[in-house]
């Protein structure tokens, strides 16, 4: 029965490196390589640490806020701190490109597993990507070159340089998201409106260059400004304990946050907001969320926490109710323990399976204060 539940759980639509067939382990590796090790999703606002390891900005900020001054890189355990975080736009572009290419490659890899299996190295994979794109995804003249992920990273810095490859406004272009044919001058709007969860699609280099040159136009620039938060400055670290209630409230109001709940809640809210805000700034302009979206995100986070706390209090009630019973059991076990054991070590360490009538009750106690027992032995 459990396996049935597991199946329904797994049936939920969550993309995973194992979506690719086993015959194409290189594709699984590639898919895993553009995912954050902490949240297992595609990098969202990737940042690099001094050691070079890369994580989602929000994920690593969460780690730092929990570990404080003792924070270490989750992968290699070298010391790190918040000031070392550097946005990694190259990786961000790779992720965007891979998200776009993924469905194409998936359909290619699935029905013809033999073909996919014969593509263990990069050149072949590059080939399959290209083959699919040229007929259906990109009839437009813009995508003259498609590049694999590696060369794309190399290309980013120079991508602002204009290329002569820009299509005319009237040229028909396939939407890279839904494959619908749209006029080139309208594709921006088309994707902004419906089929674009992320406004930027930064696939191959020439395309990207075309887009960035387009972005410089007055119309799209205005749009960008509208989207971007009013101030794009990182919020500073604050030592909340030294602030007075009033100052804390002012800070909340400054950010447009609610002042409900107690002081602890204000601090947490402000902390989370700072994290969300700064992580958002680590994304490149096209990927950033608006202030309103961040507020929604904060709300979702608070809701989640509330639900969890509710659960926790239920457990506490249970503990209170059973407290008498626990005390009785502990009292029943204590004298036997001290009487029956020769040394303190033997009393705290756990005996092998029950062989006499005395031990079952002793075992009960061990289960209850499991943590205590562990500490003893440490």
């Amino acid at each position, binding site marked *: 029965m*459990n*396996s049935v*539940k*597991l199946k329904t*759980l*797994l049936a*939920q639509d*969550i993309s*995973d*490196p*194992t979506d690719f067939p*086993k015959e194409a382990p290189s594709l699984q590796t590639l898919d895993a390589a553009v995912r954050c*090790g*902490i*949240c*297992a*999703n595609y990098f969202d606002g990737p940042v690099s640490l001094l050691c070079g390891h890369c994580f989602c900005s929000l*994920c690593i900020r*969460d*780690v730092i806020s*929990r570990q404080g001054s003792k924070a*270490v890189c*989750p*992968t290699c*355990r070298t010391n790190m701190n918040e000031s070392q975080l550097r946005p990694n736009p190259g990786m961000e572009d790779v992720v965007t490109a891979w998200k776009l290419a993924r469905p194409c490659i998936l359909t290619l890899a699935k029905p013809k597993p033999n073909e996919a299996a014969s593509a263990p190295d990069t050149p072949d994979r590059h080939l399959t990507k290209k083959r699919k794109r040229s007929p259906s995804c990109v009839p437009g003249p813009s995508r003259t070159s498609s590049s694999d992920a590696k060369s794309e990273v190399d290309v980013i810095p120079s991508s602002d340089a204009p290329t002569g490859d820009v299509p005319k406004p009237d040229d028909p272009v396939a939407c890279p998201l839904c494959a619908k044919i749209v006029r080139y001058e309208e594709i921006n709007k088309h994707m902004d409106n419906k089929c674009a969860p992320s406004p930027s699609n930064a696939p191959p280099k020439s395309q990207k260059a075309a887009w960035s040159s387009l972005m410089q136009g007055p119309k799209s620039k205005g749009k960008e400004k509208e989207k971007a938060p009013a101030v794009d400055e990182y919020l500073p670290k604050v030592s909340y304990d030294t602030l007075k209630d009033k100052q804390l409230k002012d800070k909340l109001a400054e950010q447009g946050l609610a002042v409900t709940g107690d002081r602890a809640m204000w601090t947490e809210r402000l902390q989370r907001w700072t994290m969300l805000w700064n992580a958002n700034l680590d994304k490149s302009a096209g990927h950033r969320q608006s202030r309103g979206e961040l507020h929604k995100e904060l709300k979702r986070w608070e809701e*989640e926490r509330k639900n*969890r706390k509710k659960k926790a209090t239920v457990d506490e009630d249970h503990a209170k109710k059973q407290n008498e019973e626990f005390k009785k059991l502990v009292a029943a076990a204590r004298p036997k323990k001290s*009487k*029956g*054991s*020769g*040394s303190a*070590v*033997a009393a*705290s*360490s*756990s*005996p*092998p*399976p029950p*062989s*006499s009538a005395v031990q079952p009750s002793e*075992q009960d106690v*061990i*289960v209850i204060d*499991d943590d205590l*027992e*562990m500490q003893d*032995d*440490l």
Partner: protein
Amino acid sequence: MDARLRRVNKEIADCKNDKTSNIRIDLVDSSPFHLKGSFPGPEDTPYQGGLFEVDIVIPDSYPFQPVKMKFITKVYHPNVSSASGAICLDILKDAWSPVLTLKSTLISLQSLLCSPEPNDPQDAEVAKHYTTSKRSFEETAIYWTKTYAMPRGGAGAETAQAAKTDTRDEVAIAGLEAAHVDQFEALGFPRGKVIDVLRRLNYRGANVAKITEDRVVEELLK
């Protein structure tokens, strides 16, 4: 969907699709945050041939806090409590890193079985047994593996036999020698108590010569 659920979901899928590592993860009830992992005992160790089950509880702040794991299957190992199954392993405590996964943690447990660390024990008695006489320790660990960790079908005959000879079972599980237990039982002490005391005194290997009979009797009389 909340990030924790997403990640756990992926980790379960990852284990399901990976047939080479031999690591399984199943749900215990309807919650995806209470799981049961299992892995085969590593080859060329006393745990070879056994299947070890681990209780997994995923905390609220996972993956920023370590998963809670303890053995369901009884294991005779210096870093595993022989009664509660609690595990002493750094990555389950302060050395946890959010990039570790359920699979990698279970693999770590598997390799913990390969390389016991008696200097940082969870079960002091077992650790003493290990340092006193490794061979005797291994015999006991093999016996525990046969008794507790063998899949029901395969070792059915053996466990049935073990159940029949109940008394020998107890001595072997405690990692003692029958001759020693018989010796003190002959003095008129109950067998259960003799086993208990001898185990606690670590009456094994070279220690037998060091511990006088008087000392044993003294303990038995307490």
